[in-house]
């Protein structure tokens, strides 16, 4: 009887082959390979129905558990929301005239408005944590969704379609480290500085970095950042992104960054709307 260990050489060859294959895949994907996109899409389509089914089973359970753990927090949040609702009703009445005026201006300059785009309502079927901040939805190209379309909740931007298959899509959240969008701050009665809003790896807040008008700019807590839009932007102008989390003064020629708190709680998304927005074609 001869007892011998498994072939060490063979297993090393297998490992080297796997490492080389993985590195090749990473390299192709980084460069943008349609074959990989297609394979990814097909495989995701196969698994998507199982994920949809499991999320419909698990979501009520996890929502209930989340609610148990946050009972006192939810109570105070409820009180705060009631106060904010009362304030919002007052603001809405005061802002109705301004909105009508804005609408007239947008129409005058022939600029697109959020209401101009039809949307696809989708259920959130899963979130990813760790290094990616994404979530999956149960609608895909079959429902008219395409890559880079903005995703909103109640009009506020929560992400963009990062990858799409026929039956589902992965949405990159606005607080993902690789997310970035042109933005402009909006004070109560005037437009503020223009900049970029981008996600951070180590925070749930976005960074707003001014790219023009830096000298002597003050950014007040509570100011709203909206998408800046533009000819090359994949976002329509005017989608709220977040509010300035604390007062920031940019002195001299060097601007300081402001932190933006997302308007929507991105960890508790259940239903979202994908705007079928296409960037205007430059003449």
């Amino acid at each position: 009887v001869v007892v011998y260990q498994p072939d060490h050489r063979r297993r090393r060859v297998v490992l080297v082959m796997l490492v080389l294959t993985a590195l090749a895949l990473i390299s192709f994907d980084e460069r943008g390979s349609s074959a990989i996109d297609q394979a990814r899409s097909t495989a995701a389509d196969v698994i998507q129905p199982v994920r949809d089914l499991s999320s419909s089973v698990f979501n009520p359970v996890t929502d209930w558990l989340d609610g148990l753990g946050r009972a006192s927090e939810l109570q105070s949040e409820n009180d705060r929301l009631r106060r904010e609702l009362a304030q919002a009703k007052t603001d809405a009445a005061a802002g109705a005239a301004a909105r009508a005026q804005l609408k007239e201006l947008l129409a005058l300059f022939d600029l697109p408005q959020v209401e101009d785009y039809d949307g696809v309502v989708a259920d959130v079927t899963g979130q990813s944590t760790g290094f990616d901040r994404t979530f999956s939805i149960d609608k895909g190209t079959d429902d008219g969704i395409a890559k880079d379309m903005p995703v909103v909740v109640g009009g506020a931007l929560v992400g963009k379609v990062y990858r799409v298959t026929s039956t589902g899509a992965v949405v990159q959240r606005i607080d993902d480290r690789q997310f970035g969008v042109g933005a402009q701050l909006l004070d109560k009665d005037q437009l503020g500085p223009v900049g970029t809003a981008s996600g951070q790896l180590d925070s749930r807040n976005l960074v707003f970095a001014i790219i023009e008008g830096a000298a002597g700019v003050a950014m007040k807590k509570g100011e709203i950042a909206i998408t800046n839009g533009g000819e090359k932007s994949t976002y329509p102008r005017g989608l709220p992104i977040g509010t300035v989390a604390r007062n920031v003064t940019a002195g001299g020629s060097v601007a300081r960054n402001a932190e933006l708190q997302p308007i929507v709680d991105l960890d508790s998304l259940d239903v979202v709307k994908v705007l079928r927005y296409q960037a205007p074609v430059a003449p």
Partner: protein
Amino acid sequence: MMRRVRLGLVILVAVVLETTLLTHFDVLDAAPGLCLLCVVAVAYEDGAESGALFGFAIGLVLDLFLITPIGLSALSFALTGYAVGAFQAGIVRATPWMYPVLGGLGGLFGGLVFIVVGGIVGQDELLSMHGVQVVVVGALWDALLAPAVIPLVRRIARRPDHAGAWRIRR
């Protein structure tokens, strides 16, 4: 054949659970890494080659649902499977505390490979203190879940003839 089907189902269930249910348990941006624990279990049960192959397969499926480049999880899981499989060849007798240690070390190793390789291929934000924090907290999660997950997946991955790392020829 039946074993491959069983392992295929393990991949499906683990990926679905990791991307749906377990995301609700994130602490400091880290959630339990069920897929990595399955890799550790298969490697511990069946050795380095099986661990690497299974790690590559489950990592590739998980990559479908991430926005990091496809192949990054596959690479880190394959290396973890190989390392755990090579490590288990030197173990004479398993003890009860072995599972949390394996789960924790596997999570730490896999996570570090993920952020280092990610950094090399252009995801340089991963190589940060926050990235290390996510890996460490994720490894603690893995150590916690390992005593429940590893024995179960080992049982599923067991060969019918129970032929492990050693073979006998007459």
